[in-house]
């Protein structure tokens, strides 16, 4: 069996799955339950100054029948008394000495930072996570993302913390910034031991179209909140990658954002994370999801012959390149596996209306055909096809040639006119504009039109 345990900047835990600082880590009760269920660590719900919350706090994005593909909240940091939280931290630590308990902190003055770091240290926390991320409610008071968006302020506060911290310090970054590596580098300059990202993204999750107010609605009104859940994973992955690749960051990364199964976790790890944190999925499905996450990760590691997490931390990073480094000689074209096709013609209409008119209908069958000379290899049809592996993208170049934009630029070999031999799209045939007119009506006419006496006519 592979070894799932990690040592994250000095914080050890039996597996890389931590609960993110959020409602699931609100209390000792929840954290013990989570550890019992199999979670490796927990970042306690952020401790700090006294706050009060509003009622009606969360909003969701549903996609068709799928609930909470995106999630947002307007909640603040822990509203429980600090003393209760600290007492429960020690209780959990005593009961689960092997598990990671990290105190998430957010206060204002140097003195307050010193006090709260010492207090949580005394309570037995294995490390700290400085919450510079909350995009609502706290920033108005000069905390949270107000700090995370100002690398200088961030650096100063981290330095205050480092003055007293005897346990590893993780700086949690807000994604509400144009270049995530700036605060990451500030954290490093201040001597932080690690970074975690992303916190929630400033968002309006939806608008109540009957009451003209954004969700979640508080007495007829709403405010911007913090966005998370499956929908934010792509943004998180990119930011994790940016920090992992930056030569001046070089800090362990705890990946957060849209992780709900082992596969999401593996993706974060392949882009440089060495622990992962989960919030929304635990709020949606409860702590039980950890069983699937652990078993999936184990199975993946067995199949790939990875002994430890560190065998694949950042393993995809060398393959994440700038556009100008990509091989322009590589050529794929769509291929329809006719025996699998169910004839929905989504590929046809997608390529016809949304891509390059490289798919045509055929007489006597609903299975469309690829017009190879027009296929630019954009993938769209294979993405819309509802049947697994029915449209595959097949390689057409012989794999012997390699030429990047960068190399071409260096060789003074970039196209100068649109008709240049080197220019793209040259062999790609585009129909005359007027050929479009009336085309939409070449399909089976619905009954309304039929009754109006429009003659039915079909292509082919």
């Amino acid at each position, binding site marked *: 069996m592979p070894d799932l345990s990690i040592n994250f900047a000095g914080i050890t835990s039996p597996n890389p799955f931590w609960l993110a600082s959020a409602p699931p880590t609100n209390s000792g009760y929840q954290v013990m339950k989570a550890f019992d269920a199999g979670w490796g660590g927990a970042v306690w719900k952020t401790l700090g100054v006294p706050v009060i919350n509003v009622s009606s706090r969360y909003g969701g994005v549903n996609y*068709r*029948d*799928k609930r909470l593909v995106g999630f947002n909240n307007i909640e603040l940091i822990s509203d429980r008394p600090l003393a209760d939280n600290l007492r429960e931290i020690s209780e959990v630590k005593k009961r689960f000495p092997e598990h990671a308990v990290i105190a998430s902190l957010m206060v204002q003055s140097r003195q307050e930072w010193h006090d709260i770091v010492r207090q949580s240290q005394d309570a037995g926390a294995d490390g700290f996570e400085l919450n510079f991320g909350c995009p609502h409610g706290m920033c108005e008071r000069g905390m949270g993302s107000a700090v995370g968006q100002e690398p200088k302020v961030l650096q100063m506060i981290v330095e205050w913390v480092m003055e007293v911290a005897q346990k590893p310090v993780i700086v949690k970054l807000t994604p509400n910034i144009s270049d995530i590596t700036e605060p990451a580098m500030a954290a490093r300059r201040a001597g932080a031991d690690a970074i975690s990202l992303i916190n929630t993204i400033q968002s309006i999750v939806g608008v109540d179209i009957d009451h003209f107010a954004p969700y979640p609605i508080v007495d007829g009104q709403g405010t911007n909140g913090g966005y998370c859940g499956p929908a934010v994973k792509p943004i998180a992955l990119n930011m994790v990658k940016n920090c992992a690749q930056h030569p001046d960051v070089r800090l362990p990364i705890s990946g957060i954002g849209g992780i709900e199964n082992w596969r999401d976790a593996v993706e974060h790890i392949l882009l440089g994370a060495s622990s992962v944190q989960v919030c929304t999925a635990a709020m949606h499905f409860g702590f039980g999801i950890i069983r699937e996450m652990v078993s999936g990760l184990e199975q993946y590691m067995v199949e790939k012959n990875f002994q430890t997490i560190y065998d694949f931390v950042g393993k995809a990073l060398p393959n994440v390149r700038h556009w100008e480094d990509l091989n322009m000689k590589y050529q794929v074209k769509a291929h329809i596996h006719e025996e699998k*096709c*169910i*004839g*929905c*013609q*989504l590929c*046809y*209409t997608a390529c016809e209306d949304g891509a390059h008119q490289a798919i045509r209908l055929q007489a006597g069958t*609903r299975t469309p055909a690829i017009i190879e000379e027009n296929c630019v290899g954009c993938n769209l049809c294979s993405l819309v096809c*509802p*049947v697994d592996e029915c449209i595959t993208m097949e390689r057409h170049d012989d794999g012997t040639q390699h030429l990047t934009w960068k190399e071409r630029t260096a060789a003074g070999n970039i196209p100068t006119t649109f008709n240049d031999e080197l220019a793209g799209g040259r062999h790609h045939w585009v129909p005359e504009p007027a050929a479009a007119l009336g085309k939409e009506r070449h*399909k*089976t*006419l*619905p*009954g*309304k039109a*039929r*009754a*109006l*006496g429009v003659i039915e006519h*079909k292509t082919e």
Partner: protein
Amino acid sequence: MAEFSTPTTAQEFAENFAQLKPNMSRNEALYESSRCLFCFDAPCITACPSGIDIPQFIRQINSGNVTGSARTIYEANYFGNACGKVCPTEVLCEGACVYNLQDVKPIEIGRLQSYATTQAIAENKKLFAPGLANGKRVAVIGAGPAGISAACELRALGYEVVVYEAKAQPSGLTLYGVAPYKITNEEALAEMAYLQGQFGYEVRYHAPITGRDDLAALEAEYDAIFLGIGLGHTSALGLPGEDRANCVGAVEFIEALRQRQAGTPVGRMVVVLGGGNTAMDAASEAARLGAENVVLAYRRGKDEMGAYHFEYDLAKGVGVRGLFNVAPLEILGDDYVTGVRFIRTAVADGRVQEVPGTEFTQPCDMVIKATGQAKQTHFLHHIPGLELDNRGRIVADAVGQTTNPQYFASGDARNGGAEVVNAAAEAKVAARGIHAFLSK
């Protein structure tokens, strides 16, 4: 042992005749509509005789525009709610759904269709209005799917419409013929009331048009006459003993069932004669009424039955037993039926032949003849110049105009007996035909 005990209350009747396509909850409609792929040039539309824009109405349900969805449905088919429940969707839209090719359950188009329209009916959503009055008048004979659909379309075009119906209630066989586990009387009538509220045509009940005098009066009073009279009574078999009590026609048996519900009398041992969908319905219905033994007797082999496979499966599922390659010779008994004398048959060169010496008696106390509906030829002969084809169907052109130009026809009377959806679709076209004719 019978599968069902004889229902004595409305509740028991509803249980025995539980809806095959029950109404969807909002949640189920959301899940199911989410699965639709929104196919290009969708094959389900092509397969729908009324050409409802199915991906469109399903997408409208999914985005929460249920009223718009109902509009999409009704624009193509005024019996949109009934059709969602009574259409043989397995061989129409759902049979054509691309999911079948993946061996995945096809989209439940029928139930989604009823979902959207049920909501529009319940909330009495205003979707249509009569067109600007054009001063012309059309008489519609028959308030079945054909007649009512024609009336709606004609009203939308500005005609004054009076529907003459022999029976006490509208919707034709949807109310008097279709199996009660497909649609309830309340549902059928609610759609009728909804349509009449929107379009404002007049219906005269208990108003059969019976002979030359009636027709002459209509011809004088109206600019055009639409024939939506459907078919007639169950055809006679011409067998000895056919007139004994408890030997009934399927259409008449089902009509009584739809009206009397739990109180419908049924035998303990029932023989149903026929191999079409009506025979399957009658057999199922007899079983659900508590008959202990229901035998479906057909002249040919099982695979040659005209009924849809799923209809036969449905009958088998409630305990009906098939008896194939037998022909009835005589209905036995005194005043009442006591049995049927059969002879076995064999099919040679596509023709059914009796096998000598194979007679046998099947005891029973009720016989239901599901041997087809007669055409209303006698009545139709009163219309001057109206041609019928050799099977008694009204001859008409592509827009439903008959050989007497004042008369148009659609539905069972013209197509010889099909489904509700065909009657609804064809009548819409015929109404357009009337409009074109009267606009000349």
